[in-house]
Every structure is written in C-alpha cells, then in structure tokens.
C-alpha cells in the first residue's frame, strides 16, 4: 500500500507553489549586508513572516511602513519578517541588488532583505505579486505554511484598514489557535520574471 502511494506521488507532476499546510524547503539567499541568510538559521523562532517585496512597486511603497511595523511588533514575539526581492533587474533596474542595499539603508530595515537572483525561491513558493506574504509556523523541525496572501484589506489607507490579515494570523498562532482566514488576495504588481 505504501509502495503504491509512493509511486503515485512520484508520478504526479511537479506543482510549483506552496499551499497552506505545506512544509517549506530551506532556502539561502544574499542579504543587503552581503551575508547569506537561510530559513534554517531560524531554528529558535516560532515562525517567520516571509514577504516577497521589491523597491519599485507602488503597492510595496504603500505597504513599506506596515511591513517595518510587522517586524517591530512580532520579531520579539518569535515571528520575524524576512523580505525577499524576486524581480529581474534587467526588466526592473530599480530592483537591482545595489538599489536594494540603498533602500534597506534608507529605510533602516531591521530585517533581512534578500535577493532572489535566480527567482527559484519565488517560484518554489508560488509567489505571484509584490507584496505577497507567506506566514510560516515552526512545527518540530519543519516550517509549515499557515497563511498566504495580502497584508490587510486597504492598500491606500492604513487608517481605513478593517481587516489585518497577517496580524490576525500571527496572533492566532501565538495564542495556539487555528488561523481562520488562511488565504487572501490583494491588487499588486506582477513579479518581473526573467525573459518575460
């Protein structure tokens, strides 16, 4: 029976993109301080707030202070932010590594801002937009996806937000509860894939 199941799994087509509940493979990318950062470095965390983000997208700019605030609120509680920049700088020069370094410095980022140069991490996650959140929860030795999607329900006005999707999800995990809204959508910019 187990052998049959294994065969079925082996034969099924590779589906790129995580769903809620999936275990996330380790990744290792370069941070704007020149050092490498891996998901495996976060063994002591309760989880990680992975955010695919960039310098240039107006949605990323609209959410920038809220992303900084998420780290300020939750890093000390065991859920730090890891920002990953997946855009091809050939298509979007404003998202080059040097521009990322400048941006992180200007905004005094207290979280990693990693360059997904080959775009393989964005592809394996199934990220489609910037910004795009994947909330991961530590389950034993593994990191599992708990929430995918938008930061909140109002891009243009933080004061008009009525649903803080990511905060609610992290708060639920911190309380040992189930995340109620596990997948949401928002408008955003397409990721600038190579050879688009």
């Amino acid at each position, binding site marked *: 029976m187990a052998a049959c199941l294994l065969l079925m799994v082996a034969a099924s087509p590779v589906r790129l993109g995580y769903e809620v509940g999936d275990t996330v493979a380790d990744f290792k990318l370069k941070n704007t301080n020149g050092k490498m950062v891996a998901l495996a470095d976060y063994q002591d965390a309760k989880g990680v707030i992975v955010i695919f983000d960039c310098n240039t997208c107006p*949605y990323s700019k609209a959410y920038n202070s809220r992303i900084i605030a998420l780290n300020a609120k939750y890093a000390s509680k065991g859920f730090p932010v890891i920002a990953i920049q997946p855009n091809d700088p050939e298509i979007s020069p404003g998202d080059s590594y040097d521009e990322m370094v400048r941006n992180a410095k200007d905004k005094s980022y207290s979280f990693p801002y990693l360059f997904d140069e080959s775009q393989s991490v964005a592809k394996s996650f199934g990220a489609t937009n910037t910004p795009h959140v994947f909330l991961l929860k530590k389950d034993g030795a593994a990191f599992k996806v708990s929430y995918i999607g*938008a930061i909140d329900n109002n891009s*243009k006005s933080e004061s008009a937000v009525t649903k803080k999707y990511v905060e609610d999800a992290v708060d639920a995990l911190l309380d040992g509860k189930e995340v109620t809204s596990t997948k949401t959508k928002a408008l955003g910019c397409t990721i600038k894939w190579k050879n688009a």
Partner: protein
Amino acid sequence: MNRFLAIILLAAALTAQAQQAEVVTLEQLQELIESRTDHIKVINFWATWCAPCIKELPLFEKLGYERSDVKVTLVSMDLDLDPNPEKVNKFVARKKLQSKVLILDETDPNSYINQIDKNWSGALPATIIINGKTGQRKFVGKELHEGELEKLIAEVL
C-alpha cells in the same frame, strides 16, 4: 467651401473622441463580463502606474481597431491606490486611447478579485477574453505580446 466645412467637421469629430473614463462598481463590471452579446469581449485590467500594462496597451487598441467582432474594454484599477480618477482621464487624453475605459471603484479586493476571475492573483496586468455568445473565457495573468491576443480569441471561438 465644402472642403473647409469637411475639415471643421473632421476636427470636431476627432476632438469629440477624447473620452472621460466611466467610474463603475463591481456590479456594473460583472454585468459587462456576464452579459450575453454576439461579439468577443476582451477586458484588460491595468493602471497608470503599471509599466507592463502601459507597454501592452497598443495591442488592445490595435485589436479593437482591426476586429469588428471584438469589443475591447480597459478597466483601470487606479482607484485602489489613488482616490482621484483625474490621473486616469489625463492619461487617456494624452495617449488618445480609443478603447472604452472604465475605472473600478470598489473596496475589499479580497472579495472582488475572485468575483472577477478565480484564477486572478490580483497582480496587474490581467486580461479576460470572453466569447459573448457561449460565455467561454480565457484568463491571462501576465503581460501579453504581439499575436497572443489573436491566438487566445481563436481558442474561445
């Protein structure tokens, strides 16, 4: 005398084509998407700040001009980031867009994105191609290139 009159009338006709984009609700947009018609509907979601959207706009303009069996609608999502629709109208006037331009005015994108198309991640640009007679549709969640629209239309015919 006749030629002079003709020139005046032509000038009047050309300036009259500069349009004010119509602000619509989700309900009105869904009416457009779901209504049965005898033509192909091509609905493109774009914004004035979106570079790949602007880059592909000429393809939609050309399509609307060349194909009498296709009706193109360009739906601006600008209001999600900027409450003032004037930026869209200025853009439409500057680019002399001939296609019909709508501006969606809705809150709660988490709800309306799926109501527009379940395959849509919310990223711009996005395009829906619908056979108005059969309701068959194709969704494209990325920038389109030369020739791709015609190929997709053929697939819903």
